[in-house]
């Protein structure tokens, strides 16, 4: 679990790509790949390939033939005794065309059918003694794909970018209102507006963090927009001091008054979210960025919302929790049309677990409270934390596998 935003160097590459001063990287073009159909046309006789996994040599993946004519081909996978192998893929140029997972000795054989043009492919059995084997399809090469999964995924990244832009626009509006309340010295109005301004950043944060302002060193938190907007007390950098939402939260909910410092913090926050708004307009995402972003939002839930650290003074953690989940679900939703072509079972599993988490969150709704959720007090945290964290755990593991899928899609 990535505990500290300040230490989020894991996303360094992404951060570098998004750095304000740097030219934004283009979405890499997918290599042209062979057309692959998930199912054979009915009435056509598919060529048969049997793949057998055994424990020989610490895990062996053998094919009964490694050359078949072009056309529909059915691959039937049987794990006879290979305890170390759980997965088989048919790949071309490092792109997955078809695969089977959760293979284990004793389970019934499973199969997938693809329509392949002539060319050399590979059968990839992660961890096998013969991990990568050539598989030759004779006959004419298939025409280059016009659309395919890559195009569908790319379309999703554009849609997601629009979503992020919309979220940040809405944040600027909500923070402006909060700032108006604070400038007016209206504590009660500011305390009501605070939770209403919070969810936007939490919906998109993993996709918009990592911006370093021009002229600042990458390790200087005073140039780190995410630090300036959303840093919690538990991860403060003494050299940079406290800025942003949670410093304001402290004044409103712990201090119980609006001071000149509060007003300065609020004005600074408004400037910084407006800066973020301009930066976001130029972001481009690769499909795996959406997947990694969704996974990172769930890490946020587990690290900071479950613990009640995020909204330590106001206890509005469940608003942020729901926003993180919503943001993750949106990112996944934009990948979903492509993911359905890649791995329907995993797509269904992720959808089911999202539904379970959202249904659970619904049980904590209370529309009489600003933001719409019960307060996440220490008592609520102690009684409900394990239930909430387990529901998210069941979503985290399958979701963590999406990035690899979309990064290797045709």
């Amino acid at each position, binding site marked *: 679990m990535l505990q500290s935003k300040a230490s989020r160097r894991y996303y360094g590459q992404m951060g570098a790509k998004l750095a304000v001063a740097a030219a934004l990287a283009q979405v890499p073009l997918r290599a042209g790949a062979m057309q692959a159909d998930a199912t054979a046309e009915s009435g056509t006789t598919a060529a048969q390939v049997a793949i057998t996994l055994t*424990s020989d040599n*610490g895990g062996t993946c053998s094919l009964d033939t490694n050359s078949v004519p072009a056309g529909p081909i059915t691959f039937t996978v049987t*794990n*006879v*005794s*290979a*305890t*170390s192998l*759980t997965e088989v893929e048919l790949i071309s140029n490092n792109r997955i065309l078809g695969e089977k997972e*959760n293979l*284990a*000795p*004793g*389970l019934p054989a499973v199969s997938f059918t693809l329509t392949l043009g002539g060319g050399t492919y590979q059968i990839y059995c*992660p*961890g096998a003694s013969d991990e990568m084997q050539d598989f030759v399809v004779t006959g004419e090469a298939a025409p280059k794909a016009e659309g395919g999964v890559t195009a569908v995924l790319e379309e999703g990244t554009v849609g997601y970018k629009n979503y992020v832009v919309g979220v940040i626009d809405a944040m600027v509006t909500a923070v402006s209102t909060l700032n108006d309340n604070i400038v007016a010295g209206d504590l009660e109005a500011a305390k009501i507006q605070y939770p209403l301004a919070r969810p936007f950043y939490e919906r998109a944060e993993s996709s918009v963090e990592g911006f370093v302002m021009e002229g600042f060193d990458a390790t200087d938190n005073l140039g780190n927009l995410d630090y300036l907007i959303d840093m919690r007390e538990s991860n403060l950098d003494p050299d940079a001091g406290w800025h942003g939402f949670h410093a304001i939260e402290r004044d409103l909910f712990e201090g119980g008054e609006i001071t000149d410092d509060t007003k300065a913090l609020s004005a600074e926050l408004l400037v910084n979210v407006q800066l973020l708004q301009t930066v976001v307009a130029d972001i481009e995402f690769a499909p*795996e960025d959406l997947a990694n972003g969704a996974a990172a939002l769930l890490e946020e839930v587990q690290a900071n919302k479950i613990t009640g650290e995020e909204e330590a003074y106001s206890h509005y953690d469940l608003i942020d929790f729901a926003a993180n989940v919503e943001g993750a679900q949106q990112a996944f939703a934009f990948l979903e049309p492509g993911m359905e072509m890649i791995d329907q079972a995993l797509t269904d*599993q992720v959808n*089911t*677990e999202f539904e379970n988490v959202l249904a659970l969150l619904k049980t904590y709704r209370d529309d009489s409270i600003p933001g719409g959720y019960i307060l996440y007090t220490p008592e609520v945290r102690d009684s409900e934390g*394990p239930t909430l964290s*387990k529901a998210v*755990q*069941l979503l*985290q*593991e*399958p979701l*963590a*596998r999406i*990035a*690899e899928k979309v*990064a*290797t899609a045709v």
Partner: protein
Amino acid sequence: MSKNGSGSQNAPGREMSRRGLLLGAASAGSMAFDWRAAAAAPAVANLEGEEDAIDLTQSIPFYGTGEQAGISTPMQRHCVYMTFDLTTTLRSNLQVLLARWSAAIAQLTVGEAIGQIEPTRETAVGSDTGEALDLAPASLTVTVGLGPNVFSDTFGLAEQCPPLLRELVSLPSDRMVADISGGDLSIQACADDPQVAYHAVRNLARIAKITGAAITRWTVLGFGRASAGKGQVTPRNLMGYKDGTRNITEPEDFDQFVWLNSGPEWQHKGTYQVVRKIQMNIENWDVDPVSDQNRIFGRHKVSGAPLTGAEEFDTPEFDQTDESGQAVIDPASHIRLASFEHNEGVKILRRGYNYTDGINQYGFLDAGLLFISYQNDPANFEMLQRKLGASDLLNEYIAHIGSAIFFVPPAPQEGGYLAQAMFE
């Protein structure tokens, strides 16, 4: 564990006495519970026989034609026990979970990773978490249990339910806490290296989530065996008493009291696992005079001999009285109430471990016994515990706070998986 530590333990054919192992661990400086080792090693090393030596390179096969490993297997030094709640209503998910667990356990017990630790693709997450890399098999056994809810109409398995599997009845002195009781699946991972055992449980818990079939419920880390297997010197529980002197060790007793040998054939060599988390009132126990402690157990603390005898394995003379006509072994003592002589000849296999959870909310040491028993009829456990819970002198110092029951199917054969027959 340092390179030196693991390297020397992995040296082929190099057997280590417990003392040798513990000194090795102390020099490595990172093995848990060094304090216990450091304090106990010199004396115990002198008492333990050669048969108790630890060889971390040993591995115990998972596949077989009889019972699962980890029941009659001589007890390893450490145990991580975990139960799971099912999170699926799909029969196929349960099937895939048991098959993937079986394959993974087969890997783990020979000291292999369950999959790629550092996948070739940079966007991929690892299959194995990696912390057991370079560690020896350490006699790891992983024993899987199926709780009553597995055998439900939801999974189309109601008709496969082992005849005597059911929730345990409420028993005298039960002080059960829901959060550390029950479960639909159980994993008992025992090894001579605690990191090997923990790695196994952690990775199996991950597979549960990857398949969407189950999620963790409760867990206990057992750090020292508190019952003897065949050929082992009787170890001590945290009360300082030898535990398991009269435990089941002979094949005839296993056949009579532990293994199922009737009912559906796929259940033969299965057994019922009963688990109880027994908290000890450590501070109060430590200020109780040893004479009273001896009376409570019915044995001498150091020698383990019954109060009517001189040696550990002397048969207790429950009818013996002193000059004043009082029973030498108190009628409410622990060994008398638990003895087969007073329980219709019934014996159960005990395979417990000491545990600690740190310091509790009241400032007491939070520790006790993870009691694990195996029997071919859960009613046998209930008969013993009904008597103990009602009258045992020890009850002043202990509380049963967690409880669960599971059917433990026989081992799968290579190419198959646990309880496969019930799906076919």
